[in-house]
């Protein structure tokens, strides 16, 4: 009889349908189409051409370099991010707000500036340039520079995803562990870490996705040497500039796939952990 009763706090089904349609349209236009364009362009000349572009020597070198950079960057930011989150969430000290601001600062710094600052410091004309050159140490235009720029850009990801959760969980469990005689490290390892592991993983995955995809910052410090200092995004640019569009998009598609796998892993983890996390940003 009143099966169609609609509680006052719910919207009309027609209205909801419009919302759903609009949301899907927005997502399709803004999110799906660009990605689809990448894959369509990659396969325009057929799968073999796309695969050839990926297994080509310089592409492989770029893939390797990208993975190496990510493999160094992510653990560095993991350790730093967890330390920062712990300090901010579980301890009191003066200047805490300043520290939080500092941690979030790289989000609002242009990637180009992120590259620039390392040129200012480590470039041959920079603060440490002469000293480094005298010792024949190459920082920018080599792996260390790429890692530094990437660490800078991905710096806040782990801290930002873990910190709110740690704050929300408060200190009771840590205090309980302390009364039970646990050392700081034991407390962290056995009490805090298990509580935040999903958020932590999700932060790590985001950090990884961004580290692999960073373009602006590494572009400034890379030197663009084929097979040597080209990461995947830079290699995409190079191929694109050589009018090898299919190849460029093939490498781009591979990058996008790596990112998608990362995101899929993240959402599976979130589902496993049963808590939707707002790990954006």
């Amino acid at each position: 009889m009143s099966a169609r009763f609609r509680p006052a706090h719910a919207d009309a089904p027609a209205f909801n349908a419009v919302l759903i349609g609009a949301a899907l349209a927005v997502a399709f236009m803004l999110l799906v189409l660009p990605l689809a364009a990448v894959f369509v362009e990659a396969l325009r000349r057929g799968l073999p051409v796309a695969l050839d572009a990926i297994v080509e020597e310089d592409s492989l070198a770029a893939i390797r370099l990208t993975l190496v950079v990510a493999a160094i960057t992510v653990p560095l930011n993991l350790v730093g991010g967890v330390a920062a989150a712990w300090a901010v969430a579980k301890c009191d000290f003066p200047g805490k707000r300043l520290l939080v601001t500092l941690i979030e600062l790289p989000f609002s710094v242009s990637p180009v500036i992120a590259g620039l600052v390392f040129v200012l410091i480590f470039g041959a004309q920079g603060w440490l340039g002469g000293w480094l050159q005298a010792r024949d140490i190459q920082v920018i235009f080599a792996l260390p520079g790429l890692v530094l720029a990437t660490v800078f850009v991905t710096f806040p990801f782990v801290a930002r995803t873990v910190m709110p959760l740690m704050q929300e969980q408060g200190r009771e469990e840590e205090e309980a562990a302390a009364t039970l005689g646990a050392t700081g490290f034991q407390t962290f390892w056995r009490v805090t870490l298990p509580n935040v592991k999903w958020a932590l993983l999700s932060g790590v995955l985001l950090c990884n996705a961004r580290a692999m995809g960073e373009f602006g910052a590494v572009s400034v410090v890379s030197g663009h040497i084929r097979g040597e200092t080209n990461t995947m995004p830079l290699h995409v640019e190079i191929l694109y500039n050589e009018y090898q569009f299919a190849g460029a998009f093939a490498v781009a598609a591979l990058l996008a796939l790596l990112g998608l796998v990362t995101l899929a892993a993240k959402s599976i983890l979130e589902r496993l952990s049963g808590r939707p996390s707002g790990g954006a940003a």
Partner: protein
Amino acid sequence: MPPHGPATPRRALIGGALALAAHGAIRPASAQQATLLNVSYDPTRELYREYNAAFARQWQARTGQALRVNTSHGGSGRQARSVIDGLQADVVTLALAYDIDAIAERGLIARNWMARLPFNSAPYTSTIVFLVRRGNPKAIRDWGDLLKPDVRIITPNPKTSGGARWNYLAFWGWALRQPGGSAATAEAATRQLFRQVPVLDTGARGSLTTFAQRAQGDVFLSWENEAHLALEEFREAGLEIVYPRFSILAEPSVAVVDGNVDRRGTRAAAEAYLQGLYAPEGQALAAKHFYRPRDAALLAANAARFPRMELITVDDSFGGWAEAQRLHFNDGGVFDRITAR
């Protein structure tokens, strides 16, 4: 995760550190396999890919040393900046003498670099031509046609692209030569020209993509060699080259980066590398990739591919690159003035 967790970050850290070391954070002066790094500008990719292989073969035959030549490409200015900032280039092959001068100013290259190799250290030349759409629908034959109101011109940004500076100077030179031409009329004409530019990419390659792939504009001001490459790469876009009667002699310059080769012990290979560009094989490769060779006989043999044009030079018409750069392209120069509203 807990049972494995502890080791993961640590292991990765150690792995990272090893990779860092292995990758050459600290580069030994003498590597097992000798490498040369040629830092070049955008349109030379195809030429140097071929020349590098040829030179490595020659070098091994001559000295028995295995050699790998790496190249880095990008906007000429950016590339020069990278070398100044410490990119370990053994040789630079850039679009303009000015960019090499900039490196020389910082002491990495001897100031007299231009005199060290024949032809002002420019082993090949090029010029600026027009690339238009099939059938030349807007009937663009010469520089004057660019100013027709319905013509949209694609060129890269002279601030960031060496080729674009050649475009700009060629047009300026043409405007000066018109009846009643003066700096003032040239500036007015150039101002009008850039009003008709819808997209200013940072480099020649980006611009060509915009023109050919995105179908923007009616004419693309292009390096001669790029124009030929574009005919092949964008066959489906249907492009044609138009040779104006008049253009500019572009002399892409090359130099050994003294500061780097002396430290790396690669001077011999680097000098041989540049000299090889003047040798018959190098000249032939340049011609093959549509750079005008210096070798008169070779140029004559390729006369059909390199039509004769009236060409001005930067030195004669603009008092050299330093002056042209200062007057036109530096911050507050003519280019800034004409693009300001």
